[in-house]
């Protein structure tokens, strides 16, 4: 079966601010494949290279070397993003639109026919419990409401792959639970989910497989149960070990 996401020897470098500053290697030789229907947790401390990897995947940054594919297409092609939904970590939406207008705008970009789109808008707003505020401008929303609109826009095209960047950051416990429920529901529908998170408990709950990045390299990758058995540690301790904190753990 063809992987939905595929990285082959991916390398991402950022040039230094001037000639004396060294080039920063954000991702170094990443090889990874995500299969259809998987929920994959992409872990790592800040600066590990997770966001750079996601930026390549979404076509925001060209890879310096190697290759990244979505549904078998090179990520530089806009068509590769036709079947994905993306939820950024922070809420970056047009404040002069209402939730309904924002969803209609994104839906039209995907080329969804009007009748289907209106039904889809109703469905996703119901899913994220935003029907009552659908006509209010986004600038009047609380952070939690904006995050829910973000989730709605990520689902507007009924994506086969959902890419979530810290999906629960800034949400209250109820909001986090709701996001977890939605991920579980998508998993049962056979969708693929690729998400980065610092919430290890959450990752352990919803993920089939995890990968831990550190200093641009993929340190470990596998099923959570297999990793726990192999290392004799829980996921949090495996994470700390992989990023070089085993001494403090022993202490």
């Amino acid at each position, binding site marked *: 079966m063809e992987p939905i996401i595929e990285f082959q020897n991916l390398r991402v470098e950022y040039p230094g601010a001037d000639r004396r500053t060294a080039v920063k290697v954000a991702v170094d030789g990443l090889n990874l494949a995500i299969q259809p229907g998987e929920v994959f947790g992409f872990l790592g401390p800040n600066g590990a290279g997770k966001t750079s990897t996601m930026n390549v995947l979404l076509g925001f940054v060209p890879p310096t070397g190697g290759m990244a594919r979505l549904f078998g297409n090179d990520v530089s092609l806009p068509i590769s993003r036709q079947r994905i939904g*993306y939820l*950024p970590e922070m809420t970056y939406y*047009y404040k002069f639109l209402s939730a309904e207008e924002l969803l209609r705008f994104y839906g039209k*970009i995907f080329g969804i026919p009007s009748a289907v789109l209106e039904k889809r808008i109703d469905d996703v707003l119901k899913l994220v419990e935003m029907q009552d505020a659908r006509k209010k401008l986004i600038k009047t929303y609380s952070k939690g409401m904006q995050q829910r609109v973000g989730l709605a826009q990520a689902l507007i095209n009924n994506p086969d792959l959902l890419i979530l960047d810290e999906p629960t950051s800034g949400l209250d416990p109820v909001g986090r639970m709701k996001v977890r429920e939605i991920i579980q529901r998508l998993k049962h529908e056979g969708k693929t989910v690729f998400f980065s998170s610092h919430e290890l408990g959450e990752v352990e709950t919803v993920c089939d497989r995890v990968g831990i990045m550190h200093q641009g390299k993929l340190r470990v990758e596998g099923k959570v149960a297999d990793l726990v058995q192999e290392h004799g540690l829980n996921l949090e301790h495996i994470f700390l070990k992989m990023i070089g904190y085993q001494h403090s753990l022993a202490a």
Partner: protein
Amino acid sequence: MNVVFCISALVVKELYRRKDFYVVFVLTALITLMMGSISFFNDSSMARYLKELCLFLVWVSLLFISVGAAARQLPAEREQRTIFPLLAKPVSRWQLIFGKFLGCWWSTGLALMSFYVFFVILSGTREHEWPLASYLQAATLHWVLLGIIIAMVMLGSLVFAAPSSNATISVVSIVGLMFLARYLNKIALQQPEPLSSLIYALYFIIPHLEFFDVRDLIIHHRAAIPWWAWSVAVVYGLAYVAMFLGATWLIFRKKRLST
């Protein structure tokens, strides 16, 4: 083109919700109406001065509306980071640039149409003449000029650090092009080589915005320009629009998305 039209419709929506245009339009209308209500020594040629003043206000208003709108499009997307969820959809960077351009151009076109309708009614009711072909030529050439300005300012928004500096430099450049560009060939003749050739080259490279200023046709009741000349001017203007947008895309395709 679906994506381009979606983005342009979003720009139009943003601009009419910002209300800049209404303020400028009401101010222009008020000043013109006040001037129009005054009668100096029962001078019948007053209507011509009034038309000149009204057209000048329309030109200045539309210059500021178009520069203001175009200067903030790409920087605002990058600063507010709305560009990330947008480009995570099947949208390419040239579609974003072209959509933003079209949105600004249509918005200023709507504003221009409102201004000219107001102007035609005002001058028609005072002079009892309706030279519609001249009005049509003046309005369409003005619209093409706004297209060049918008494309130029969008290019500037990727070159200059802040929208405010871009807007200031653009306005100064546009005014310079409008009033000085036509004399560059004469200046070149008075210079020694190689400066003469350089100024001549500049004369042929820069867009001659004065070609699009046919206000005199409607102020002084001159005959409409031949339609072939009008067509050449439109093609000339659109060629500059394409060049500026092409340059914008060349810079933007390699540009980091965050500021």
